[in-house]
């Protein structure tokens, strides 16, 4: 039973972003394929197209040389394409067996026989009659896999399957996947974890910005080479003059900071230590999902920690919320500019009012001072060359670049001592990227500090004075930017170590 799956010239365009740009790939049974890429590279869109959740704007999918239409998840099932999503789709209060039989037309007894066969064949140990909520994450995933297996899949797609698994569960999963592959099931494995690609997969396709940038055999690849392909290796020659801050005053110090999350989809942070001097830019590199989100929230005060763990200008700020931290002259530009840094339904001046200082008097005695906010907003629009002067415009009508200029402008116009930004140029066009980069260099020149958390290595090497890498919630040694190369970052981002 040979299965061939081919996607041909698939394109999917969302407003403001090309999720898939003429993606063509071929897969054949007997091998495990990795689809590797950063968040937003387009791999989830491609997978959603294969599983019928999303319809492509252009392009075709061929199964065994026959063009197939995937208009709904049901079509994917009919074509024997099985899919295990990162977030499980199980009814927690129903039993394992009920979850397996709920969408099947077969008789219960037949399903039970089938399931027992599968359990035996792959050596899964799961009690079929207990509620799903009593299972561990790994067991729940097995239930999802069995749900696919009872339909005799030709293709099995796994989306970031190890994000909630323990090491042992991961090992077990890999053994099972290799077994499925031997049994003739074509396996597509979506991940951004480089080590897993090398230990599990036979072929790897790397996606970046909606395009397939490379297809190769994993034997020919190393962690560094894959990392570079993922984040882009074309180093920009324009670089900030790196300064030596030996004599500068220390502005921020984090000591032994730990964060443990209750949410299994979040990353725990272990024993973070860093310090930042006046006028310095500290770059934090890493493949997304290694704790950047959590680190940003800890810096911004969305996650509150022990007071003593973060010192800013000699004050303990760990327990302060974002608004209180702003009063101490910190500013924040989060990754999600569309729905976190700004509210699309709000007008520009209302979005400006989100950054509220006591001294800016936006709200005097609890009342909105619309005139003041609008004046202030006009200043931001002109100082940061946002492409409109209408403060009544809803921010959803701003392009990504203009919205980011508005946000950075809002954060900087109050002259903060420290700006923390997270992927500030994600998804922007070249013009806007250059503008933001120039602005970030400028604030350092004015003696203000910045922390740049980014998954774009070019950007980090261009803007940082010192760089470190975050991997699985741990920070690497902090290095001077002039000693850092893309190769070194690649090794550290993949979990390797350098001297």
């Amino acid at each position, binding site marked *: 039973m040979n299965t061939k799956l081919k996607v041909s010239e698939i394109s999917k365009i969302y407003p403001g972003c090309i999720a898939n740009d003429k993606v063509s790939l071929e897969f054949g049974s007997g091998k495990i394929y990795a689809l590797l890429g950063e968040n937003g590279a387009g791999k989830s869109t491609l997978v959603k197209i294969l599983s019928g959740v999303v319809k492509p704007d252009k392009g075709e999918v061929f199964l065994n040389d026959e063009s197939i239409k995937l208009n709904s998840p049901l079509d994917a099932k009919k074509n024997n394409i099985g899919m295990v999503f990162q977030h499980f789709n199980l009814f927690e209060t129903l039993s394992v067996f009920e979850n397996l039989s709920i969408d099947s037309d077969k008789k219960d007894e037949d399903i039970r026989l089938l399931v027992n066969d599968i359990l035996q064949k792959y050596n899964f140990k799961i009690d079929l009659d207990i509620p799903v909520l009593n299972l561990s994450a790994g067991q729940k995933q097995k239930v999802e896999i069995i749900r696919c297996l009872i339909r005799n899949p030709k293709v099995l797609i796994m989306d970031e399957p190890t994000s909630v698994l323990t090491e042992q569960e991961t090992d077990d999963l890999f053994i099972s996947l290799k077994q499925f592959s031997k049994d003739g099931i074509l396996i597509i494995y979506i991940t951004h974890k480089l080590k897993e690609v090398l230990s599990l997969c036979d072929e790897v396709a790397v996606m970046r910005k909606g395009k397939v940038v490379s297809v190769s055999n994993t034997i020919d690849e190393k962690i560094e080479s894959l990392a570079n392909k993922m984040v882009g290796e074309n180093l920009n020659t324009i670089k900030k003059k790196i300064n030596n801050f030996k004599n500068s005053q220390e502005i921020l110090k984090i000591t032994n900071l730990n964060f443990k999350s209750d949410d299994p989809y979040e990353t725990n942070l272990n024993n973070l230590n860093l310090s930042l001097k006046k006028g310095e830019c500290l770059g934090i590199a890493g493949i997304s999902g290694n704790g950047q989100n959590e680190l940003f929230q800890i810096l911004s005060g969305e996650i509150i920690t022990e007071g003593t763990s973060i010192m800013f200008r000699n004050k303990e700020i760990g327990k302060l919320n*974002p608004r209180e931290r702003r009063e101490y002259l910190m500013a924040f530009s989060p990754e999600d500019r569309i729905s976190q*840094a700004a509210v699309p339904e709000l007008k520009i001046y209302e979005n400006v009012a*989100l950054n509220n200082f006591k001294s800016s008097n936006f709200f005097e005695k609890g009342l909105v001072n619309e005139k003041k906010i609008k004046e202030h907003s006009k200043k931001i629009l002109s100082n940061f060359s946002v492409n409109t002067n209408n403060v009544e415009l809803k921010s*959803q009508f701003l392009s990504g670049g203009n919205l980011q200029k508005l946000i950075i402008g809002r954060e900087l116009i109050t002259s903060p001592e420290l700006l923390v930004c997270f992927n500030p140029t994600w998804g922007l066009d070249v013009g806007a990227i250059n503008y933001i980069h120039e602005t970030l260099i400028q604030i350092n020149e004015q003696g203000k500090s910045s922390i740049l958390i980014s998954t774009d290595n070019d950007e980090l090497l261009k803007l940082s004075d010192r760089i470190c890498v975050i991997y699985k919630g741990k920070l690497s040694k902090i290095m001077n930017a002039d000693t850092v190369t893309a190769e070194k970052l690649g090794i550290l981002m993949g979990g390797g170590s350098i001297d």
Partner: protein
Amino acid sequence: MEVQLIKIEKRSDVSRSIYFLTPVLAIFLTLFGGGIIFYILGFNPIEALKFFFITPISDLYGLSELLVKATPLCLIAIGLSFCFKSNNWNIGAEGQLIFGGIVGGGVALLFYNHDGFYVLPIIILSGAIGGMLFAIIPAILKTYFNTNEILVSLMLVYVAKLLLDYLVVGPWSNPEGFNFPETRQFSESARMPILFDGLRIHAGIFITLITVFLSWLILYKTYLGFQIKVSGLSLKTAKYAGYKGKIMIIIVFMISGACAGLAGVGEITGPIGQLHRNISPDYGFTAIIVAFLGRLNPVGIIFASLIVALTYLGAETAQIFLQVPKYTGQVFQGMILFFLLGSDYLLFFKIKFLGLKKNEL
């Protein structure tokens, strides 16, 4: 070849006119749907709708009754708009109304043989506080114990109802009342002043209007209102801006509970004049429809409360003239909500008629 006649497209922006026109569309669809129901029941639909929506307000008494019903609906809905705007789903206004009624009524009974200008304000205030305290329960449970406010607030309605039942049957029942499940009549100075002789419309309407104005002020002109708006649109942004989410949840529940409590006390000191089992014909639940029909906007809510109040009156006239059960009123209220939710689809999507192309056939 598949031919598409109609294409549904997502709108890039919600137009403001459509935002306020869809409630009107919903009302027309309700009239149309109601007409069909009356037709199936064997009535002339035009006649029946006339009995339902025109006859009740064709004289002064009817108009006064309309305002009597709209007064509590508007007040509760305004309070609820604070909760709903900030994504807090307070479904238990009925319970907060009853509890406000219990507390206010208790104070009124305490003063049953007192006279004085101070009696009524004390009763009103205690009613508002009663509703407020009752609404704090789901708020505290939500903020500190992660419970679902929909369930808690809803279930507390039955707690309040049973408590009222117990009080009017047991300890608070009228000693001269022949064991009827009701309390004493409140004293004259515990009653809302009547505005016109012979009509039931009372001073509670001013409380409602003042509350509407204050709410508009708070929602659109204050920092608190701004925070409520931002949290309703994006909790992530509210967190990023550093708003104190927990305190805000408690505040909106307090406002909403106080409004419901005021409505309750307005009913018992206004048209009812004592406590008994049925001090509210589900005003607290119906106000949810009013709040959404009015688009959570203070002015919109005033209009919506009048329209929904009319369904209460219409049901009564329809019962008299057409011999249909008065629960028809609830059918109409249900239809309004149903059509409103349905037409909200038009807010986010537009329908394009493509027509047939000959070469495709």
